[in-house]
């Protein structure tokens, strides 16, 4: 059975994990962890890894030229570059408020892209 080797990021210990799978994405077991969080991390990271994407989008109509954004929650890791492509094309109209939705359901992830800053304080 295929084994994926990972470093656990749940705490500074950084345990070297071995995650055994059935070759089709199903996790059979995790070894090398020293706590439950490690096991959970190993399972998730191998079967359905997720990340938050943070970036900037162009602001139309003024200062600042770009405003920071993030996906409201984690998105599937394999969608990172698709999200970035949408981020690159997006244009926000000033004024932007922190929390405003910049792109709904960005790159079809089911997650919104939101502003993390306001254009005016």
């Amino acid at each position, binding site marked *: 059975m295929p084994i994926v080797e990972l470093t656990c990021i749940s705490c500074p210990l950084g345990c070297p994990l071995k995650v055994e799978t059935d070759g089709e994405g199903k996790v059979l077991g995790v070894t090398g962890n020293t706590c439950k969080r490690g096991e959970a991390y190993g399972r998730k990271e191998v079967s359905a890894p997720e990340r938050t994407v943070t970036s900037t989008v*162009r602001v139309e109509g003024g200062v600042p030229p770009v405003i920071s954004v993030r996906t409201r929650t984690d998105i599937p890791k394999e969608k990172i570059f698709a999200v970035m492509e949408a981020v*690159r094309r997006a244009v926000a109209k000033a004024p932007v408020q922190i929390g405003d939705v910049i792109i709904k359901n960005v790159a079809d992830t089911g997650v919104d892209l939101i502003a993390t800053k306001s254009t005016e304080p």
Partner: protein
Amino acid sequence: MKRYDTVVIGAGVTGSAVARELSRRKGRFLVLEKASDVCEGTSKANSAIIHAGFDAQPGSLKARMNVRGNLMMDKLSEELDIPFRRVGALVVCLREEELPRLRELQERGRENGVEGLELLSGEQARALEPNLSKEVCGALLAKTSGIICPFALTLGLAESAAKNGVEFRFDTEVTGLSPEEGGWVLQAGGEEVHTRTVVNAAGVHAGLLHNMVCEQKLAVIPRKGEYCLLDKTAGGHVGRTIFQLPGRLGKGVLVSPTVHGNLLLGPTAADVEDPDSTATTAAGLTEVMEKSAWGVKDIPYRQVITSFMGLRAHEAGDDFVLAESAPGFFDGAGIESPGLSSAPAIGEYLAGLVTDKLGLEENPDFDPIRRGAPRIAELPLEERAAKIAENPLYGNIICRCEEVSEGEILDAIHGILGARTLDGVKRRTRAGMGRCQSGFCSPRVMEILARELRLDLTEIRKNGGDSQIVLKKTRGEREA
């Protein structure tokens, strides 16, 4: 056809000094510089010392020009409004048996006409400079030795020349030089420039230009010297420039305060192939640190904020070449140490040769006074407040380490030979020269340059050539 009386090639300290002296006469003068600013070659990276003049061989041009240049410096620094301090220098001797050589040096100085030389015991020297090492057993004190900002001197000379009518063209390299009826024609930046006379002040490239037109070839060898600059917290480690008497271990390096309050260590000396290479080496920087410790103790090496390499234009004959080497072609070549100290005298001398050749008349409108832009942070508080009231931009600090304001950066950009690059602003205002080495202020200075010169941020350069800093906008435009 537009024809100049004189074209000076090179806007380093020598070329700028020649240009300023020429502007005392009536005529059409042009300075051509291949870099984007004044002081981009040998002039910018050296020991920043105005030597007393005891070192050069009696009778040499180096001796003559050094002593004369040193004498001229008080008046000149006042006229140009640039910092110059006669802090004095000590040549320290580390071995008893080498003490007679200090006396020889004093004797040579006397022959060269240097005033204020005095032999000291080790104790006397340490009384003046408590951080001299205990091995120092004697020293020669040279009271007329001084320190200066090489960039300020060069810019001051160049701006004074420009103010008095000399034209300057930057980013313009001279690629061809040939005689024509009554003068010379230069290929410069894709154009022909006609002139009656040429002054070759091209630093490490002076040999190349000379050899284009003269039978008797010159061998100008780039010789590199590496330096370390320490933070201002170390600036008071010595009060004078400390040289080491060349001894058993070879030539030492100097330890000197700078006019800006830093401590300078260096240089090493090695010949190099590439006249444009200013790469430092691990071995060179180690050598600077090791040798500087011979004569001065407890140097706080952790305070190093930057290191750099300078190239000296060494000529095989070991003296300056100041002469009309071909009809109407004047060399200011082989200008290595003490070139900075000698520059005012070289300018006077070469401009004199040109004047005699062309029979130039005096320029009655020549104004020797040039005012530098004010350093706001150095003003007394009340004056500073008044300046800010006059121009609020003097209150907007851009470079926090050196406390340089937006107003001063605008002065630098809109000056008579205005800054067009990040380094140009840095050298004129000191923005970016402090302990963070431009980490915080460079994006802000870039923005100001872009705004004032009506350029996009991607067009702002560090210095000349293709030294762009940011490459493209992340949003809203396609890849260039």
